[in-house]
């Protein structure tokens, strides 16, 4: 968070409000939404903008998340820039439509307030909802604070709507810890955003002048080719992401690191990799341990899809141990992020640093600075040869039962 002075407006707002401001600045033409905690205040704010004539946009109050994604797809396939937001059960309820949207190449941007998935029913944050949507063909980006949330919405449209990409983006914010936390946020000028993000123009739409059918049936003879297009589009996106972040920095004076952001990794021997709000807290722990002379570093995995395989492999090749924090567990295996990171590390040179998977922060359980410090110390010991479980649930409370 850079305290910028060159920009017009600073406000003390929640990350959900920051998302709403980001969306407003991108001038979507159609929004459809269904409320769910902790996403709700985003769509409330957008409704306010529209009712106050601060924003010209068609707003549909739709009856379910499945219909939400169907409605924004309907608008997108008519050539409109669209937005929606959801969370948790709602995201799962629209799962079918996520595939329709990505498969038919509509560059919808959606905010997901990360919240765990029932049962047990719970409204608090972890990444089990969005990670369950890993293979839906959407790009996924996890942000660290309100400023990054606002900025990432703007970047997301730029990325999604690139003609070589035309792939939807899910911007993920940790429920409550980010969505309902107020911070100082720079709200860019409309003119600055307009200069960065041109209006949405696409050939991939229903057009009376050039009638065609979208989202059609493809038989086995052609399905693979359409899937290959999606695969290529995501690869293209991966190439573009760092450049879009740089271009954003040139316009707005802020950067968030593209695919990943490294923190004090230059000479690091022990690094933690994580997504979302815990990255912020981890920075403090890195600073503290660095003061002790420990060579620790931190990697923010900003994009989960496309996955920053080479970037992580490059870091992995230089360090002794890598810890991965997952606010998720893939039952029967390990954390979803960990599995991907580990595969990336092995792929680099056939060797791999010592790795540990920390399962933490499930359904809103706080990840404390003490937890994070413990993770680093375990990594250091593991690198020195001490036995450590590969998959560790942080802060289990069995003893209190």
């Amino acid at each position: 968070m850079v305290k910028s002075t060159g920009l017009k407006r600073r406000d003390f707002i929640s990350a959900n409000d920051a998302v709403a401001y980001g969306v407003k600045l991108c001038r979507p033409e159609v929004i459809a939404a269904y409320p769910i905690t902790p996403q709700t205040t985003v769509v409330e704010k957008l409704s306010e903008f529209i009712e106050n004539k601060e924003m010209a946009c068609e707003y549909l109050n739709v009856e379910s998340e499945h219909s939400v994604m169907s409605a924004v797809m309907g608008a997108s396939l008519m050539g409109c820039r669209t937005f929606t937001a959801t969370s948790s059960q709602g995201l799962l309820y629209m799962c079918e439509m996520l595939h329709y949207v990505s498969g038919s190449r509509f560059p919808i941007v959606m905010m997901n307030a990360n919240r765990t998935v029932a049962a047990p029913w719970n409204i608090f944050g972890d990444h089990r909802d969005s990670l369950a949507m890993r293979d839906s063909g959407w790009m996924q980006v996890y942000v660290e604070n309100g400023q990054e949330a606002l900025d990432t919405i703007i970047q997301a449209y730029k990325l999604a709507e690139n003609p070589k990409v035309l792939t939807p983006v899910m911007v993920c914010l940790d429920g409550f810890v980010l969505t309902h936390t107020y911070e100082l946020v720079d709200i860019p000028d409309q003119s600055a955003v307009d200069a960065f993000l041109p209006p949405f123009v696409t050939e991939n739409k229903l057009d009376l002048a050039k009638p065609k059918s979208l989202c059609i049936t493809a038989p086995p003879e052609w399905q693979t080719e359409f899937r290959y297009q999606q695969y290529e589009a995501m690869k293209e996106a991966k190439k573009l992401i760092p450049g879009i972040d740089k271009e954003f920095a040139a316009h707005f004076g802020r950067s968030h690191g593209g695919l990943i952001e490294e923190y004090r990794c230059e000479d690091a021997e022990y690094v933690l990799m994580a997504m979302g709000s815990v990255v912020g807290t981890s920075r403090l722990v890195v600073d503290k341990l660095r003061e002790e002379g420990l060579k620790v570093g931190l990697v923010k995995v900003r994009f989960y899809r496309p996955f920053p395989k080479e970037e992580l492999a490059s870091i992995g090749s230089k360090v002794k141990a890598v810890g991965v924090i997952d606010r998720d567990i893939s039952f029967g295996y390990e954390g979803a992020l960990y599995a991907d990171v580990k595969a990336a590390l092995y792929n680099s040179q056939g060797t791999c640093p010592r790795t540990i998977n920390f399962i933490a922060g499930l359904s809103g359980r706080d990840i404390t600075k003490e937890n994070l410090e413990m993770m680093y110390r375990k990594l250091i010991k593991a690198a020195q040869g001490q036995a450590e479980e590969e998959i560790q649930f942080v802060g289990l409370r069995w003893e209190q039962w």
Partner: protein
Amino acid sequence: MPLGPSAVAGVLVEANAGWRTFRPVINGEKCTRCQRCWLLCPDGVIERGEPYFQIDYNFCKGCGLCAYECPVKAITMVKEGDSNG
């Protein structure tokens, strides 16, 4: 390939003629051009031509509906391969 699964509208790659066992044949003299067959044909293959209505045999599936519904019995179903009535 198009970008994404899309297709230009109205593109047909395969005729339906092979579906038929019987084909409808219009008797132009009996036909009153009431348009009932034209209206009801599921495949829209009847053309309101002048002086006679015609059938697009590339896409007629031979369902027989036109012959059955013709109020003046101006359409007969003829087995494919047999000579026209």
